[in-house]
C-alpha cells in the first residue's frame, strides 16, 4: 500500500498532499496568533493602567526584523538551489537561514534576560519605582541567600517562635527549607509535646513522636500516615452510622418524603468508635529565630503569618524593607492617571506623593523634569504653533511628563537635557552600565514593606502588557526554534534524499520554507505592536 501524491501533485487539485496540509496548518496558526492578537487589542483597549508605550529597546527588535526577513529570502534561494540541483548552493543558503534563526534567538535571549533581573514595585499611591534589588551582598557585590546562592528577591522576615504544620498539606521542600534555615541561625525546631495516637480502637496508644524530637520530613510523613488512616477509619464508621440512621428513620415514617426527614436524621458521634484525627502538629523554635520567605509564599501579619501550604508561623513580623541596589526609574504615569480620573491636578498629586516627599533624590529629579517638560512645551509651540482656541497643536506625551527612566537619570547626572544623555550602543542592548555610572546616577533606595502594594520583576506577572509580550514573543520564539530545527535537519541530513529523490527534498524544503515565511509574517505584526506602538 502506498499513499499517492507525496511527490507529484494530483492533476485536478494541482497540489501534493503536504502542501495542502501546510496551508491548513498555517490557517490554524493564523487563528492561534489571531486569538493572542485579539487578546492584545481587548486588553489594551480595556487597560485600567497606563499602557507602557514604546518601552522596549527598538534597535534589537529592528535588527531582528531584518534578520528574519533576510532569512525568508535565503530560504527561497535554498529551495531554488535544490530545484536547480545545486547541493552546495543549497547548503550555503540554508546555512545562512539557520544562522539567522540563531542570531534572532540570541538577541531575544538578551532582551529577555535583562527583564528577568529588573525589578519593579508599585506603591499604594500607584507610584512605580524600578531598579535592581540588593539583599545580602558578598564581596563581589552579588546578592546571596543563606545557602550562598545568588537571589534577587525581596524576602519577608519573621521571627518564628512556633510552627504549626498541616498534617496533610505540608509541602516537603518548604519543610526542608525550615530545617536548613534553622540550622543556619543555630536554632532547633522541636516537637512541642508527646504525640501518642490510638491507631486501632481499643488498643493502647502508639508513640508517633516524643516531645523535643527535631522536625524532619520523615516525622511529618509518619504523622500524616496515622492521620490519613484515622480519617479513613472514621469516615467509614460515620458513613455506616448515617446510612443506618436513614434506614431507621425511613422505616419509621414511610409516608414522609426524604427532604422532610432530613433534619431529624442525626448520628450520635460519641457512640462511634472513632480515632483521634491529628490535623495539625505544633513545633517550637528554640531559640526563636529569624526565618525568611518569598513574598508570594506567605500571607504575613504582625503576630502570626501563614504559608500557602497552611503552615502557621507564630511570631512577630520583622522589618522587611525592599532594598534597591540601584533605583533606575520612577514612573508617575499611573498616579497621574488615577489623579486625573478623580478630577485632581496630576502635578499636585505627584508633588504630594509619598516618594517625592520622602526621597530627596526623587524630589530633585522631579523638579528637574518639570523644567524639562516646560522646555519641551515651549519647543513644541515654537515648532508647531497653536490652534484656533489657542491650545498648542502638539504637547509632550505622558511618558515625557510623568516618567523618569534610566536615560533621564543619566541626563541628570551628566547635567544634560532630556534625551541628550550620552548613551553607548552596548547600553541600548543590555541596559544601563551601573558600574560605570555609579551611585550618583542610580542611587540606593529602601522601601518599607507596608509601602509595597505590588512587586514583580519585568515578567508576565508585572502587568498585562508584559504578559502579552512574553507569551506572544515566547510562542513566536518556539516557532522560530521549531522551524530552524526542521530546516537544519534538511541541511545536515538531506544529502541522502537529495541523491535519491531531489524533488521530494525540494517539496519538503518548500513546506519548511512556507512555515518559515509564516514565522516571519508573525514577527512583522509582533514588532510594531510591542516595540513601536
Amino acid at each position, binding site marked *: *500500500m502506498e499513499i499517492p501524491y507525496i511527490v507529484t501533485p494530483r492533476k485536478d487539485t494541482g497540489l501534493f498532499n503536504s502542501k495542502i496540509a501546510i496551508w491548513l496548518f498555517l490557517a490554524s496558526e493564523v487563528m492561534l496568533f489571531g486569538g493572542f492578537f485579539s487578546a492584545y487589542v481587548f486588553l489594551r483597549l480595556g487597560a485600567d493602567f497606563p499602557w507602557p508605550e514604546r518601552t522596549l529597546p527598538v534597535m534589537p527588535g529592528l535588527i531582528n526584523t531584518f534578520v528574519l526577513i533576510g532569512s525568508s529570502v535565503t530560504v527561497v534561494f535554498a529551495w531554488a538551489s535544490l530545484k536547480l540541483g545545486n547541493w552546495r548552493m543549497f547548503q550555503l543558503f540554508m546555512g545562512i537561514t539557520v544562522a539567522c534563526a540563531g542570531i534572532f534567538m540570541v538577541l531575544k535571549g538578551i532582551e529577555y534576560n535583562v527583564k528577568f533581573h529588573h525589578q519593579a514595585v508599585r506603591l499604594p499611591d500607584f507610584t512605580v519605582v524600578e531598579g535592581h534589588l540588593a539583599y545580602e551582598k558578598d564581596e563581589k557585590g552579588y546578592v546571596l541567600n543563606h545557602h550562598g546562592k545568588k537571589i534577587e528577591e525581596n524576602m519577608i522576615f519573621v521571627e518564628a517562635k512556633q510552627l504549626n504544620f498541616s498534617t496533610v498539606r505540608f509541602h516537603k521542600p518548604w519543610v526542608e527549607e525550615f530545617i536548613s534555615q534553622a540550622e543556619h541561625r543555630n536554632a532547633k525546631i522541636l516537637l512541642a509535646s508527646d504525640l501518642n495516637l490510638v491507631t486501632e480502637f481499643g488498643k493502647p496508644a502508639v508513640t508517633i513522636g516524643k516531645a523535643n524530637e527535631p522536625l524532619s520530613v520523615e516525622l511529618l510523613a509518619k504523622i500524616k500516615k496515622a492521620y490519613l488512616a484515622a480519617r479513613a477509619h472514621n469516615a467509614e464508621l460515620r458513613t455506616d452510622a448515617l446510612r443506618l440512621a436513614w434506614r431507621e428513620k425511613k422505616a419509621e415514617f414511610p409516608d414522609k418524603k426524604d427532604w422532610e426527614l432530613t433534619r431529624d436524621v442525626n448520628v450520635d458521634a460519641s457512640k462511634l468508635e472513632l480515632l483521634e484525627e491529628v490535623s495539625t502538629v505544633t513545633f517550637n523554635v528554640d531559640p526563636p529565630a529569624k526565618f525568611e520567605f518569598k513574598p508570594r509564599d506567605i500571607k504575613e501579619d504582625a503576630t502570626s503569618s501563614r504559608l500557602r501550604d497552611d503552615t502557621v508561623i507564630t511570631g512577630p513580623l520583622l522589618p522587611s524593607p525592599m532594598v534597591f541596589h540601584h533605583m533606575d526609574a520612577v514612573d508617575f504615569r499611573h498616579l497621574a492617571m488615577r489623579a486625573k480620573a478623580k478630577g485632581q491636578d496630576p502635578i499636585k498629586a505627584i508633588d504630594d506623593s509619598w516618594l517625592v516627599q520622602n526621597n530627596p533624590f526623587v524630589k530633585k529629579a522631579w523638579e528637574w523634569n518639570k523644567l524639562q517638560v516646560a522646555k519641551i512645551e515651549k519647543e513644541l509651540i515654537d515648532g508647531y504653533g497653536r490652534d484656533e482656541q489657542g491650545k498648542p497643536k502638539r504637547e509632550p506625551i505622558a511618558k515625557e511628563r510623568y516618567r523618569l527612566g534610566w536615560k533621564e537619570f543619566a541626563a541628570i547626572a551628566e547635567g544634560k537635557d532630556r534625551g541628550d544623555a550620552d548613551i553607548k550602543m552596548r547600553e541600548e542592548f543590555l541596559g544601563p552600565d551601573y558600574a560605570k555610572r555609579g551611585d550618583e546616577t542610580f542611587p540606593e533606595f529602601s522601601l518599607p514593606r507596608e509601602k509595597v502594594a505590588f512587586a514583580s520583576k519585568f515578567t508576565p506577572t508585572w502587568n498585562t502588557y508584559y504578559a502579552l509580550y512574553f507569551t506572544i514573543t515566547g510562542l513566536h520564539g518556539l516557532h522560530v526554534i521549531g522551524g530552524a530545527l526542521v530546516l537544519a535537519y534538511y541541511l545536515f541530513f538531506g544529502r541522502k534524499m537529495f541523491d535519491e529523490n531531489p524533488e521530494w527534498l525540494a517539496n519538503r524544503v518548500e513546506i519548511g520554507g512556507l512555515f518559515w515565511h509564516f514565522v516571519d509574517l508573525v514577527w512583522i505584526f509582533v514588532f510594531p505592536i510591542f516595540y513601536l506602538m
Partner: protein
Amino acid sequence: MSSHPSTAHGPDAHHDDHHHNPGFLWKYVFSTDHKMIGIQYAITAMLFLAFGFYLMMVMRWSIAYPHQPLPEWMSFIFNDGWKARWLLDGKVTGETYNMFGAMHGTIMVFLGIVPLGFGAFGNYVTPLQIGAVDMAFPKLNMMSYWIYLAGGLVMCASFFMESGAAKSGWTNYSPLAGFADGQIVNQWLAGQTQWLIGLVLLITSSLLGSVNFITTIINLRARGMTWMRLPFFVWSMLVTAFLLLLAFPPLEAAGIMQLMDRVLHSSFFMPSGLYTGAQGLADLSGGGSPLLFQHLFWFLGHPEVYVLLLPAFACVAEIIPANTRKPLWGYKSMVYSVLVLGFLSFIVWAHHMYMTGMGAAVSTFFQTTTVLISIPSVVIITALLISLWGGSIRFTPPMLWACAFIPMFGIGGLTGLPLAFNLVGLHLHDTYYVIGHFHYVVAPGILFGFFAGVLHWYPKITGRYMNSSLNHLHFWPSLICMNLIFFPMLMQGMAGFHRRWYNGGDAYMAKTQDSANVFANTVAQHIDMNLIMSYGAWAMAFFQIFFIINLFTSWKFGRKVTSDNPWNATTLEWATPTPPGHGNFIDEPVVYRGPYEYSRPDHAEDFIPQWHKPVAVTAPVTDPKDPA
C-alpha cells in the same frame, strides 16, 4: 494485505507496508491503519463516555438525596482514603459535586463525543467512502490518537491528586478557574492546571486530525469521485474538520494564557482589585479581563457544538437512504446547508454570554446570527425527515436509532430557539432548561446517531451483525429513560432551578413554610422531579449493559454477513472486502455516479452502487470525469 496496483517508485515506496505479518503491538497498538486507529478511538471514547456517565450518576445521587451517603453500588470504586477526602460522612460534598460536574462536561465533550464522532467514525469511514487507501498522513493519524489519549489521561489523573480534578465547570471561566486550587504550592500538580495541559494536548491532537482529514478528502478521492458525488457523510466530516481546524486555536490561546495566569501569576483574565475570602487581596497586577476568556472560550465553544453534531448527522444521513431504499432527499441543499452551518457557527458564540453585559448592540447581532443558524439546521433535519416519506422502510437495528434521532434532536434544537433571544436568555440563563436543551441535542440526539452508526458499520468492521433482540432491549428502554431524564429538566428550568445546585434545590425547602416565599414554593412543586430524573439516569446505565454485551459477543458469535454489502448500500465502503485489509480496496475503485442511487425506475435492482460500471442498456452512459 492489499494488492492495490503500484504505480510509482522511489519515495512513495517508503510508505510501503513493511509488516506483512505485523506483531500484536504493531497491528493493534501502534497501527497506522486508519481503520485500526478508528477502532482505537471508538473503544477509548466509549470508555471515557462510560466514565463521564458514572460521574453523572454520582451527581444525580447528590441531587436526589443530598443528605444521604452515596450507596455502595456507586461508591465501591473509591478506596477508603479517597472517600474520606472527598465525601463527608459518605455524602457528596459541594466541592466533589463541582469536580464531578466539571469533569463530566469535559469528558463527555472533549474525550467522548468528539473522538467518537470525528476520531472513530470519521477515521474508519471517510477514507473508505472516498475510495482512498488510507489517510494522507498515516503516522500523523497515529500521533493524533496518542496525543488525545495522553491529554485525556492527564486530565483524569488529577482525580487522584491532592487537589482533585478541575472544579470550575467545563467552561473553566476565569477568575474562578484562575484561583481554584490556589492552595497547591506546586501549581503544575493542581487539577485545574492539569485540565489546561490536557486541553492543550487535545487541541494539538484535533489539529493534526483535522489537517489530515481535509488533505485526505481533497487529494485522495478515487477516480470519478467528484465533489457532488461525495456521500453526505464525507461533507459533514470535511466541515467538522474545518471547524476543528479554525475554532480550536483561539481556545488554545486562551488555555495558554490561563496557564500563564496560574503558573506565572500573570493577569490576562484577572481584573484589578480581586479579593477572595481564602486568599485576601490577590497578589496580582490585575488589569485583565474575565470577559476575554469567555469570548475566546465560546469562539471555540459554539463551533464545538457542530463538531459534536455533524458526525451524528453524517451517520444518520447514510443510514436513512440505505433503509428507506430512497435517495437522500435534497442532497445538494443538505450539502450547502452544512457549509452555511459551518460558516455561521463562527459568528454566533456570544449568545452564551447575554448575561455578561456586553451591550444591547452586540447582543442583538448575536441574537440575529443565532436565529439565522437555525435555518440550515432545520433544512438538514427536514431533508432527513422527508427522506422517510414514501420509502419502503426496513426497520433494521441501525434504522431504529436513526428514526429516534430525528425527533429527539428536533426537541433539542427547537428548545434552543427561545435561548437565542437575549430577553428570554435573561430568565433561562444557567437554569436546568439550558441543561435539558443541550442534553437533548447531545444525549438522545447525537449519541443515538452514533449507536445507529455502530450498528450500521459493525458488519463491515467485524463481518458479523449485532444481535437484534439485544438491540431492542437496549433501544426502547434507552429512548424512554432519555426522556425521563431530560424532559423534566426543561420544566424545572422554566421554574428557575439553577444548574449548579448540588443538592437539587433542597436548601430552599426549609423556607417553604413561609407562604410569602414564592420561589421556595415553586421549588417545592418541582423538586420531586429530581427523583424521576435520577432513577431514569440509573436505569439508563443498566440498559447500556445490553449494548456492551451485544458489542462484544457479536464480535465472536454474531450472525455472519453473507456478502460484502450486507445492507445493499451504494457508497464505496461496501465495495471493500469484509473486514477491509490494510490498503482497503482489492482493485482501485472508480466512481460512476452519485452516492444515493436507490430504487431507480430504470433499473431492476433497488440500488446501484457508486462503483458499478454503467451498462448501456439500463443506464445512460456518461463518462466519469478523470481527475487523476
